[in-house]
């Protein structure tokens, strides 16, 4: 494999292009959400394990590190949802012109940030209300 000549690939692309950025961000947020599924199942299994097991898991889930992870997951969800809808619209054959795709890239970037800001605000409201007692 190593001896065969390679055609130039990654090095010939301009990596800062909006199309590259939106694509790799969709991938990264998708992988982050996949990891989030592990947290989800941990939480569900804790609920199935009874009050004691749940209490222990809630201690882990309300730790500072997990709060950071929840915010990352909310950011990933905000972007991946909108980028996914953009892909579904593309699949219907619409919005594929370069100007349209540039506009929708900006749109999902800004709307994703707004959605994340709203969800993060809602989540922080929970954390301040719950005080020491609760978490997601």
């Amino acid at each position, binding site marked *: 494999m190593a001896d065969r000549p390679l055609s130039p690939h990654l090095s010939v692309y301009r990596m800062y292009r909006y199309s590259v950025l939106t694509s790799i961000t969709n*991938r990264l947020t*998708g*992988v982050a*959400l*996949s990891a989030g*599924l*592990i947290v*989800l*199942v941990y939480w*569900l*299994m804790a*609920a*199935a*394990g*009874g*009050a004691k097991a*749940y*209490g222990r898991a*809630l201690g882990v*889930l309300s730790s500072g590190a997990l709060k950071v992870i929840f915010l990352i997951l*909310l950011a990933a*969800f905000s972007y991946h*949802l909108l980028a*996914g*809808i953009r*892909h*579904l619209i593309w*699949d219907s054959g619409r919005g594929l012109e370069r100007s349209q795709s540039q506009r929708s890239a900006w749109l999902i970037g800004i709307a994703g940030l707004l959605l994340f800001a709203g*969800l993060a605000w*809602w*989540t922080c409201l*929970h954390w301040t209300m*719950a005080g020491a*007692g*609760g*978490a*997601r």
Partner: protein
Amino acid sequence: MSLRSPLGRALGAGSAKEGVHHWWSQRLSAVALVPLSIWFVVSMLSLPSHDYAMVTAWMEQGWTPVFLILFVLTAAWHSHLGVRVVVEDYVHNSGTKSLALALVAFLHVVIAVAGVFAILKVAFGGAA
């Protein structure tokens, strides 16, 4: 001019019609996840607290366990399709790739089964 090979024409089998399966499953699960994931996130944030009594009461009531199961299964399926492609794209050694793909598949089955089991257990009141 036909692009089919003479052998292909003689066998007359055509394509296996499997070519778009991965692509189509990913879109279908994506469409389903739009309402399901929004429902899940909004439900999580709408719960007044996340203590044991509150969460299990929510998981038992009405359509919640049904939507939760649909969410976990669809998310696990969509996640498997996505992570699979990431592994196929970035892991180049064929042995490591096969191993990684098998692990990814097993992990997603565990996620799906554990998720459904836990939801049903709480919904049927076995967790108390």
